[in-house]
């Protein structure tokens, strides 16, 4: 019980809960559109952005590196869009090519500056990419909350447009919704959340927080608003329990603990949710008996 009332636990838990709830909602859009892995590709593409920002400015300032990361992330996203729209290349191939090509560029640039005496203090770059399991500070919670709240407000303002865009992009276009704008908006929200999550959960694992809550939501409901609500709750709940586990037991980082909690929720939902395996089997059996 001591942990639940301790100040440092509450700070970390608040940050991860807000982040996971926001990521659950924003991530639902990508999952519903069959673009779950776009966050993964864009996340990898931020690597050369970080290195380039450092090469151009020569300082290891978090805000400057984030600007580099976000710009290259956007370029990668636009390239992916161009590839899938103007050729028969599937989204899946486009993601893999951009992910590996951009990350490769980052590796080449990094090896260049590491062997170059003109650049000093390059050792911090890796921490930025792979995420530090360090404890979240109060200032980080402010940053996470700010980004999450901005994303959620944007999402609420464009809620109707996003909903129509998700389910019927052609109709959305005919009634004059700016599909490109919505697309870029969702991307920017996703990248911002990835950037906010870098420190607390790491670039790879944030992908899970963007996908898993949405999958859970989709197993429990068919209605867009309920899917979002379930996703946000599942994200928040897993973030809380994950943070609790990582605080209570030594040697377990917060990010992985949250992911494991989410994975357990996914497995339970796959079995027990209305659309899950158990009820499906039961309905099939009932159908068989009635015939």
């Amino acid at each position, binding site marked *: 019980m001591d942990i639940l009332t301790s100040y440092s636990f509450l700070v970390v838990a608040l940050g991860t809960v807000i982040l996971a709830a926001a990521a659950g909602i924003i991530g639902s859009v990508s*999952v519903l559109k*069959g*673009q*779950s*892995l776009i966050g*993964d590709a864009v996340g990898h593409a931020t690597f050369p952005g970080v290195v380039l920002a450092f090469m151009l400015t020569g300082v290891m300032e978090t805000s400057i590196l984030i600007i580099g990361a976000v710009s290259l992330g956007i370029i990668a996203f636009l*390239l992916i869009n161009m*590839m899938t729209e*103007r*050729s*028969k*290349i*599937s989204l*899946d*191939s*486009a*993601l*893999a*090519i*951009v*992910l*590996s*090509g*951009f*990350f*490769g*560029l*980052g*590796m*080449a640039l*990094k*090896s*260049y500056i590491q062997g170059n005496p003109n650049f000093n203090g390059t050792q911090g770059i*890796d921490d930025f990419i*792979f995420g530090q*399991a360090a404890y979240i500070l109060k200032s980080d919670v402010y940053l996470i909350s700010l980004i999450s709240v901005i994303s959620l407000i944007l999402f609420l303002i464009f809620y109707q447009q996003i909903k129509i865009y998700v389910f019927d992009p052609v109709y959305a276009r005919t009634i004059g919704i700016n599909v490109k704008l919505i697309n870029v908006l969702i991307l920017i929200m996703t990248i911002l959340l990835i950037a906010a999550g870098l420190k607390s959960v790491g670039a*790879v*694992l944030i*992908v*899970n927080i963007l*996908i*898993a809550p949405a*999958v859970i939501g*989709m*197993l429990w409901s068919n209605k867009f608003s309920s899917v979002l609500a379930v996703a946000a709750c599942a994200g928040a709940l897993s973030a809380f329990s994950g943070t609790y586990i990582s605080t209570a*037991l*030594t*040697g*377990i*980082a917060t*990010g*992985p603990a949250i*992911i*494991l909690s989410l*994975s357990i929720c*996914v497995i339970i939902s*796959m079995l027990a949710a209305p*659309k*899950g*395996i158990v009820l499906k089997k039961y309905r099939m059996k009932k159908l068989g008996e009635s015939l």
Partner: protein
Amino acid sequence: MIEVFLVLLVTALSASLLGVFLVLNKQVMTTDALSHTILLGIVLAFFITDELRSPLLIIGAAAVGLITVYLIEFVTRSGLMKHDAATGIVFTGLFAAAVILVSRYADDVHLDIDVVLMGQVLFAPLNRIDIFGISLPYALVQLTILLMINTLFVLLFYKDLKVSSFDPVYAAAAGISTVLIHYSLMTLVSITAVTAFDAVGSILVISFFAAPAATAYLVTKRLSHMIWLTLSTAAFNSLAGCALGYFTDTSIAGSVAFISLLTFFIVFIFNSTRLLSKVYKKA
């Protein structure tokens, strides 16, 4: 240096050959999933052997690679979620388990994901093996054998692979076991990926699986032509990337991956007017 290039070339050929079918089946991102989950296999094998240079680590990685592939297939086939969502959930879940195991039980050991992710092809020739009295890089021998196995697989099941990639419904109707073909393909992908990760690093392997085949797919629709174009593109990418990395003194794996993206884009831009497709058809 010539040995480094040979290792690259053989890796490129064996991965891109299977990549053709991954691109056609829209499953290239599975290789990205593999690149992360193999950490779990390495960690588990390390707990058993307590040694960082044991061949068991590679076997463990391959086993978890197979589990990843089967798990993604199983979840997708249950119809509960789409393939991309299943991929994202399975690989991050297994990766998280691996990270926890490392941080809780092996924090003092140098079990670094950088090593797996960045792989140093430059070091590949250092690990050698004697065959018929000739000293060869171990990775080169391993990957040459895999290249032969993969080639044999594609030759033997060419028709089945072709039909199940382009028309799975017809394939099932014609009595071809698409499931068996698919699982065999994914098994080979997993083994090739793990062996190649060890030699050149995971990012470059993903690039080898995806970029050459996608570049070829831009230009042609015929499977036989696509395979030849894929292999040539893979060879070209390795040569150009290797040269770039060598002369600018930068990471060779990174350079090859970046050159692969560039090659794809040059073909993409030239082909936006269908120019290359037409030239290719005439030739």
